[in-house]
Structure formats: C-alpha cells, structure tokens
C-alpha cells in the first residue's frame, strides 16, 4: 500500500500520470548525460549551482526535453541532377511543453548513422525549412516554406546539431502545439559521381540510419529569477 502511495505522489511530482513503460524508451543523447553528470559532480562537491542556466548549451533554462521525430519520408532516390537525395517531414509534438515559461532553445539533432556508412561519403547539404500550410499536407505534397537552416557538411559522422532560433521565436509567440519541418538532404554532385558511384545508393543508407530528435530548453520564471535580478 505505502509503495503505491509513494509511486503515485512521486509521479505527480514529476508531472507524470503513470510510470513510463520501458519498451518505448529513446536513446539518451550524450549531451544530456554530460549535463546531469556535471551537476551530480558539483552537488557531491557541495558547489553551489545555477540550475537555471545550462552552461553546456549556453542558454538559460531549467527544463530540457528531447522530443522524438514522428514524421515520415517523402522519398529517397539516387541523387538526381540537382543532387537531391532525401526529403523527410519531421514532426515534433510540442504539446508536451505544457508548463508556463518560455522556450530558450530548439536544437534539431540529426543522427546520420555510423561512420562506416560514410567512408568516402560525398559532401552533404542539409536544408531545414518550416513546412508550409502544414494543415493541408494530407491532401497534397507538403511544401518547404521559410528556410531555417542550410548547411554543407563534409563527410558527416555521428550526430549533427542545428539551432533553430526561428522556431524559438514562433513558439514564444504562438505556443505551437506541433512543429513540422521539411528536411532535405542533397549530395554534392561533383564528389558523388567521381568517388562513390560504386557504393550502393548512399540515399538509401541515409534513409535507414537517419534518426531525428528535437532538444527544447524551457525557462520557468516561477522557479528561475530573471538573471538581471540575480546579478543585482
């Protein structure tokens, strides 16, 4: 009886309705483990910490959340003339960010798969846009709207991070319930044709290994005094 009592109260305290079930767990990114380890070490030393500032990310915030991508592939093909290799709609459920407060960071984390896939990998160009009129894509091919990030990545390995400042502004203005992004990955044609023609289609490899998640940092001013007052 007392154990259920503790569970229920503790879960409420964490903002959970019931204990999460282990089969649905996400891989935990290194950055979050690094942050919690640094905090545990500082606490063990009795050092005072400003837990409303995430020094590893250089932003204020007291709650970090990693949201999994729930989107879908539009298509992958052998790099076409313009080098276009893969288009995907990335969809993140922002309604989980329910507590009052403001978003201080939205970082898109793309895992492109193990390095082995990318030996001699051509140079990639990653373009992330906001999906235009996302309300209508059920009927038509979603269109890339406002460009948020465009970056050329040579011989990518491990994960890539892209800070989406535009998303932060939109969220703080409209408290979006869902965020839909249009991801396009292009292969720089010149390097691809010369070096990798014998490799089987790198776009297919990319499709099987691509894993996207969104790291959002929120600052709850109820728990965190504005930094200016702290300085004063």
């Amino acid at each position, binding site marked *: 009886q007392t154990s259920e009592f503790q569970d229920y109260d503790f879960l409420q305290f*964490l903002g959970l309705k019931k204990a999460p079930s282990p089969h649905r767990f996400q891989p935990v990114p290194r950055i979050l483990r690094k942050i919690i380890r640094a905090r545990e070490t500082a606490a063990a030393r009795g050092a005072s910490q400003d837990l409303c500032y995430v020094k590893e990310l250089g932003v204020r915030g007291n709650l970090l959340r990693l949201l999994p991508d729930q989107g879908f592939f539009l298509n992958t093909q052998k790099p076409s003339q313009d080098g276009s290799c893969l288009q995907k709609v990335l969809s993140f459920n922002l309604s989980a960010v329910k507590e009052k407060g403001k978003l201080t960071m939205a970082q898109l984390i793309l895992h492109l798969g193990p390095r082995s896939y990318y030996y001699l990998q051509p140079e990639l160009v990653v373009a992330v846009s906001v999906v235009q009129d996302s309300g209508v894509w059920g009927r038509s091919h979603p269109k890339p709207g406002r460009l948020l990030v465009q970056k050329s990545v040579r011989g990518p390995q491990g994960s890539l991070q892209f800070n989406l400042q535009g998303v932060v502004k939109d969220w703080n203005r409209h408290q979006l319930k869902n965020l839909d992004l249009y991801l396009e990955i292009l292969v720089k044609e010149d390097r691809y044709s010369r070096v990798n023609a014998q490799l089987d289609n790198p776009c297919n490899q990319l499709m099987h290994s691509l894993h996207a998640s969104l790291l959002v940092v929120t600052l709850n001013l109820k728990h965190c005094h504005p930094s200016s007052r702290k300085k004063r």
Partner: protein
Amino acid sequence: AAVPIPTGLCRNLCHRHQLFVNFQDLGWHKWVIAPKGFMANYCHGDCPFTMTTYLNSSNYAFMQALMHMADPKVPKAVCIPTKLSPISMLYQDNDKNVILRHYEDMVVDECGC
C-alpha cells in the same frame, strides 16, 4: 536506507537525519536514468533553551525557547532545514520524451532550530 549518525551526537537533539531513496528499490530505475537515487534527508530533534545559543539557530528560536520556559503553553522552537540544495533528474516520460529537469530545495543539507 537510513544512514547511521555518529554516536557522539546527542540523538534527541535537533539534527539532520540522512535517508537515501534508491530508485532501484522502488523499481523506478527503468525510467529514471539519473541519478540512481537521492538523499531524502529530514530534520528532527529537540530544541531546548540551552541549544538555541549555538547550532546555527535563529534569534527567533532563542526568544521562543525563552518564552516556552516562562509559559509552557508557548510551544518550543522547532527543528527545520536551514540549508537546502537542488537536484537534477534525467528521466523518460510516457510520450517517448527524454526529460532533464531540476528541482529546487530538494535535499536538506543542514538543520537548525
């Protein structure tokens, strides 16, 4: 798990009692990634008049202990936390999100009257 206190200390006087909550014991280790548990310390013990002149007690406690001596209907000074520290928790929720959140004033570091 209760952490044993040094025998020298008068057990009945106000002091911090250390209690460690091990998430493994509660089956929470499957979804709480870190820490492995946390110190759920608490403050308990007597605050007699003699005590209030040291052991980081407040002036208010001194006055209340004095008033208790003059009129026992005035309750004694009480044993409360005087220094607290936060903890951060990394856990998974039901929507496949990984959450790192910090909780202010979660661990009792020091007690006083």
